[in-house]
Structures are given as structure tokens and as C-alpha cells.
């Protein structure tokens, strides 16, 4: 059944399909090493669910490398009224099973659980002021996303598709064991499924999965590109640190906020009409195009996209007038605090619904930080001067449609299971 399909392509397809049959097929195909189980003593695990960077791989330049395979489970709490302590304990047992089953690393399993404003509305008390969680909304004059209001999002990530699928089977299927560890409790009695989204990121994976709507039949995605648009992202110096995105005080200290958008990509013009000069200018900055700073997918840039180093954010308006074009990174980098980035990208591409897509998942201390970043990225201010349009020559807005958006509080590990809005801590 798997004749002629390259291995990594097959694994991605299996993750997208899901289920026990996909898992079985995936296990046969993917060269998953014999993974050890996780620790018995879970007290050593970090307080932050989102503390992933220490256990991610790094590339030659010291950039953190995201896990290759991802699944997002959007779900609604199935109980009536606020969650019971019994449900809370069941969920925590279930999540601890995952931690015992796999090492907490990119080669094992990384996961987070986060909760929406709609979830916290179910409590009498509001969230404390130390948390800035807002209802999702449209953030550009030209976007009309559907707004996600499911209670919770479970994000599973691993370099091995078989690990992600096995975890889903343990949580939502019939599997009684997970990597040899007995599954004490699942989540299917606690939550009703709302949506399942899948994806991948890493050199070569997008090129292997470009037979989707939104990418022309000429198979233009470069073989080594980590993302559909052909360029690397997540340069260390342009990512916020985990400290920078962590909530500092109150019961949810060591938590963060998560924004998740489903973005459809339309890359026919990008690959078949636009020049390389245009792609570099609109993804990075016109200076980068003019000076030829970006080779291939941009690995030569090292650990920085050279934004502030080249004066790109500060001169966005000048560049709009002089070059007639502004870059996506250039605009976004205008949103900073104390001259450091405020958003940590953990996004990945997807073939969900047969369409070239981006699950734009970002972490930031407050949702306001995301709103500020997105406003900077809109470049509406730059579209007023003349040469730059609201979409044309204005970063990569021309090539994307935000279809859905949701905002979530990603609590610290101690409060990850059905937290109250005002937990005692």
C-alpha cells in the first residue's frame, strides 16, 4: 500500500489522517527508534508547559528547531457547569500518563493544553488582572476570520509522527498502553471533539507535500525549504525568549497566552509570477533583496534575520517610499519591547482540507502583544503613502487569508488540567 511514497511523505500523510490504522501503517514505515519511556518522578519537569526550547534540537547556528510533526485538538469540556475536581484529577492522570510514556523532548513528546476565554466564562469569577486574555477578533481591515470558541486546545508535537498518533490513540481511542506504559485515563469522556488540525515543519517536508490547493502544479517549493513559502523563520534573535512571553505574577505565573490562526496560503503568484527579488523583499526587507543577503531559504543568515542590524524596522516608511515595497519581517519587527521581540512563533504548515495552510501558533505574554504585532504586520500605515498597497508590495499579505482565529491562556503545568478562573495557588 505504501509503494513508491517516500517515507517522510508517508508519515505526514498518516498524521493528517490519524486513527489506529494510520498509526499501524505509520509504525511500519517510520524508522522510530526504540524510545525510552519518560521519567517516573515527574517533579523534575519544568513549571512552564511551554518550556520547550531546552529540549529542542538546535541547528548549526544555535536556532531552536521545532518538532517536525504536530496535531492540534480543539475540544469542548463535556461536563455541565464548572469542571468538577474528579474531572480535573482524571485529566491530570491522563496527562501524566503521557509524561511517563515518553521523554519530554523533540524526539519524545512535547505537549501543551490551553483554554479559551469561552472556557473561563463558565466560572463566576473573572480571570485575575495578571492575565490578559481577550476574545479573538479580526485584526486587519481586510480579514474576516471565523472565531474559534472551543474550550481547550491540546497541542501535541514530536519529531516522530508515530508518537503523536499513538498519543491520540491513548487519549481519544482504545489504546491501553502507550510506549509500554499503562493508560490510566483518556480524555474522550471529558471532552467533545471540535476540530483536529495537523501539520509539519522542517527542511524538505513542505516540498514533499505540495500537491495541495494553493500551490501550483509546477511543484515550486524548494526541496530544502522548511516552510511552504520557501524561507526559514524562527531565527533565534528574532524570537521572543520563553521568559519574555511568560506571565510574571499571579496564579498563572509561568503560563503564557497562545494565539492560533488557521491561514490559507495562495502561492501561485508567489512562485510563478513574482521574482526572487520580490520574494526576498516582501518576506524580509527590501535591503535584503537589494544587497543579496538571503541565499536559498535563508540558512546563511545564521541566528538572525538581520532586521535591526540593517535598520529595516526603523526605516519601514522610508523604504516604502524609496523601494516601493516593505517586508513582512521588517514590519512585524516594529512590535518590540525594550528593543527585544515579544512573540515566540511555534507555527507550522499543513495540508488540512487539501489546502496549503499555516497553523500560525504564537506565544506572547499578553494577547495585546499579539494584537500589536499583527497591527505592525498589517502595514496599514505604510499603505497610505503611495507605492505600497494594502496588500500589494506590503509584506506577504497578498498570499494569505486568515480563515480562523482563537486566543487561549496556556497555564503553568500545575494548572493545566481544567483550571479555575481564580485558582488558589
Amino acid at each position, binding site marked *: 500500500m505504501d509503494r513508491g511514497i517516500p517515507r517522510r511523505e508517508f508519515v505526514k500523510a498518516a498524521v493528517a489522517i490519524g486513527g489506529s490504522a494510520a498509526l499501524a501503517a505509520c509504525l511500519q514505515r517510520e524508522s522510530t527508534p526504540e524510545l525510552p519511556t519518560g521519567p517516573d518522578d515527574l517533579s523534575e519537569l519544568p513549571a512552564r508547559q511551554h518550556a520547550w526550547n531546552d529540549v529542542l534540537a538546535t541547528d548549526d547556528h544555535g536556532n531552536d528547531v521545532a518538532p517536525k510533526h504536530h496535531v492540534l485538538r480543539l475540544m469542548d469540556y463535556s461536563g455541565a457547569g464548572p469542571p468538577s475536581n474528579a474531572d480535573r484529577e482524571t485529566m491530570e492522570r491522563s496527562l501524566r500518563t503521557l509524561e511517563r510514556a515518553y521523554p519530554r523532548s523533540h524526539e519524545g513528546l512535547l505537549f501543551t493544553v490551553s483554554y479559551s476565554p469561552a472556557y473561563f466564562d463558565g466560572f463566576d469569577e473573572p480571570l485575575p488582572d495578571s492575565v490578559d486574555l481577550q476574545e479573538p477578533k479580526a485584526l486587519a481591515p481586510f480579514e474576516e476570520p471565523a472565531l474559534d470558541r472551543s474550550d481547550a486546545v491540546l497541542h501535541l508535537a514530536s519529531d516522530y509522527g508515530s508518537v503523536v498518533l499513538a498519543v491520540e490513540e491513548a487519549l481519544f481511542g482504545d489504546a491501553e498502553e502507550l510506549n509500554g506504559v499503562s493508560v490510566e485515563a483518556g480524555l474522550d469522556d471529558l471532552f467533545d471533539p471540535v476540530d483536529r488540525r495537523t501539520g509539519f515543519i522542517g527542511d524538505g517536508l513542505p516540498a514533499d507535500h505540495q500537491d495541495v490547493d494553493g500551490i501550483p502544479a509546477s511543484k515550486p517549493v524548494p526541496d530544502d525549504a522548511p516552510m511552504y513559502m520557501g524561507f526559514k523563520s524562527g531565527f533565534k534573535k528574532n524570537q521572543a525568549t520563553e521568559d519574555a512571553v511568560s506571565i510574571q505574577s499571579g496564579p498563572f505565573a509561568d503560563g503564557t497566552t497562545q494565539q492560533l490562526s488557521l491561514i490559507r496560503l*495562495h502561492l*501561485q*503568484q508567489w512562485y*510563478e*509570477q513574482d521574482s526572487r527579488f520580490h520574494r526576498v523583499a516582501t518576506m524580509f526587507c527590501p535591503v535584503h533583496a537589494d544587497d543579496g543577503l538571503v541565499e536559498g531559504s535563508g540558512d546563511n543568515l545564521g541566528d538572525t534575520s538581520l532586521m535591526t542590524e540593517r535598520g529595516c524596522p526603523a526605516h519601514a516608511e522610508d523604504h*516604502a517610499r524609496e523601494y*516601493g*515595497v516593505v517586508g513582512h519581517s521588517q514590519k512585524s519587527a516594529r512590535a518590540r519591547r525594550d528593543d527585544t521581540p515579544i512573540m515566540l512563533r511555534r507555527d507550522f504548515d499543513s495540508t488540512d482540507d487539501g489546502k496549503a495552510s499555516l497553523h500560525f501558533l504564537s506565544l506572547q505574554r499578553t494577547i495585546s502583544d499579539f494584537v500589536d504585532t499583527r497591527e505592525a504586520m498589517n502595514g496599514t500605515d505604510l499603505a497610505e*503613502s*503611495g507605492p505600497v498597497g494594502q496588500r500589494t508590495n506590503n509584506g506577504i499579505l497578498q498570499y494569505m487569508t486568515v480563515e480562523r482565529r482563537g486566543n487561549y491562556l496556556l497555564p503553568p503545568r500545575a494548572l493545566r488540567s481544567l483550571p479555575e478562573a481564580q485558582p488558589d495557588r
Partner: protein
Amino acid sequence: MKRRTLLKGGAGLAGLGSMAGCLASLGFERRSARSPPLVENRPDAVYIPSHIEGMQMVGMGKAGPYRAALTVSFPHRFWLMTGRNREMVELRAEDSVHLMVSLWDAETQVVPPTSDVTLEISQGDETVVQKAPWPMLSQNMGFHFGDNYALPGDGTYSVSVKIGPMQTRRTGSFAGRFDDPASVGFSYEYSRSALNELAFETLDETKGNEGAVEPMRMEMLPLAQLPEPDGLPGRVIGEATSGDGRFVVSVLDEALPGLDGSGQYLAVSARTPYNRYPLPFMSLASTISRDGSTVVEGPLKATLDPDLNYHYGAVADDISSGDTVELEVGAPPQAARHEGYETAFVEMPSMSLDVP
């Protein structure tokens, strides 16, 4: 059966005869005939293209404050601009049509050239293609939003057009208008043989000469033409040329309503020669000097006004007889260009005018 499957079947099963038929049904024959080679030695100016094409009206509709028309022609090459970098967009084998969206204000017939237009083609629940058409200049089709689109075959398609809120500065009765998104839908009955009925004329005698073909006039469809110089408000102080673009400069005694500041208003109406189409998406700055020293300098902002139409302007405290107005182009017009416009409006040296 999908076209790709059809081609595969034809290639696998049959001899050369049926192969030729197969290629024809995919449109290769048509394309070679309808895409003459580029003119040799193109001047760095507006020139007569190798050919002109007819166009067909798909439909017209209301979209908020706008009227919109969808027209169709043969797929064809065009050029995109990023700064001064020009990139030719070639035809693809799968391109079926060149779709064009024209927009105008229902009240004034003014054509706003800097709108944000997106377009989605679908059949039933299936999206066939979604991409934002480029703002484009064409000698006979005027200013429009267009691109080549691939359709899987003859049939009825839904075309949904969305227009984003306008970012360009607006003055006079346009202040506060065009702020909301609008949309309009069309039903398009695509038939390749019907498309092939459209006029197609090569211009072998005149191609490559400096000049432009006449605008094609369609009933009900206003052309995006700017006023003749003597039809512009204010005192026209002169006309300058750069990169074959025409810059008509006028001075109004009062700033346009809706603008901050008071004093005179310097308006530059930048247009194509011959057909007077606007040159949008450009950056322009002015320096006014008197007796060798600068009186005022700064950017001229793209502005849409019911009387001046699309122009670049700024409040300029006082402009007197004997002053010199220097105009400097930063980025040249970033609108996409059809053949005959791609070599003009790229290198655009500064201009200078003496105020009479």
C-alpha cells in the same frame, strides 16, 4: 475527466494524430497564435504593443459604494514591479482567461486605482482558485485589477470579488467614504470556443512605435481617465515629463477640504501619455524654492478627490510666481503593466517647473 488525466490517457494510448488533437483541446494551439513575440528594440517609453485583444463583459454589479464590472480576455503576459525591478509574467499552459475587475464610484464615476481587491472562483462548494488580481495598466483596457486564471474546463463558475477598505487619503466628498469592505458576485459561463471568438489583431505595421492604442470603450464602463489639464481645478502651472509619464501640476488657492493645515495646495496629476490613465502606487516628493533657497519640501501624498481625481498632493503654504517646483520620484508606479507600458515609468528622473 480531469484535463491532466486526459492528456496522460492520450499520450499513453494513441498515436501522433490523436496526440495533436489532445494538445489542441488543452489550448496550446490557440496560445502560440495569440501570443506573438515581444517587439524588438522596445523604446523606454509607451509604445504600440504587438497586438490588441477584445474583451467580453461577464457582468456588472453593485458593491457598497462602488459599481464593479467583470470582464474577460485571453490570458496574456504582463509585468510586475517591485521597486525598479521589472518581472515578466509568462503565460502558463493551464491559463484559461485573463479576468479583469473594474471598479468605480457609483456617484461620481471616479475610478479609484489603489483599491485592495481579492477574487475567488468556485464551482459549487469547491474553490477553484483564489488569488488577488494585480492593479494593472493596459492601453486598450484601461486601469483594472487583473490576472490570468486557470479553469478546469468549460462550465459555470461563481466569481466572488471582495474590495477592502481604502487606505489612500481621501478629500472633499470622498472623505469618510470607501472605509468599509464591500463585495459582489458574478456568474461566469466559461466556454473556450466563445472566448476564441473575441477579437485579436496583430499590429504589424505600427508595433514598437512610440504611441498607444486607443482605449476600448464599452457601454456603461467608465474609463479610468484623468481630466485634461484644462479640466483640472486650480491654476495649472505647467506639465513635466519623466519616464514618459506626464505630470500636470496645479496650485489650488485653498487646501482641499478634509486636510490638516491651511494655505495653498500643490496637486500633481500623474498620468500616462495619450490615454491619461492614472499612474498609481508611486512615491513623489516636491521641493519649492525661491531665489535659490528652499521654501518648502516634503512628500506628496497619494490622494483621491472627486474633482482632482487620483493625484499626489500636499498643503504648501505659499507658492509664488517665479518659484521653482522640483518633483522627485522615489519608487516608480508599482502597478502591473500590460504590453506597451512595461518599459515606460521605470527610470524617472527629477523634473523642474518654473511657476509662471
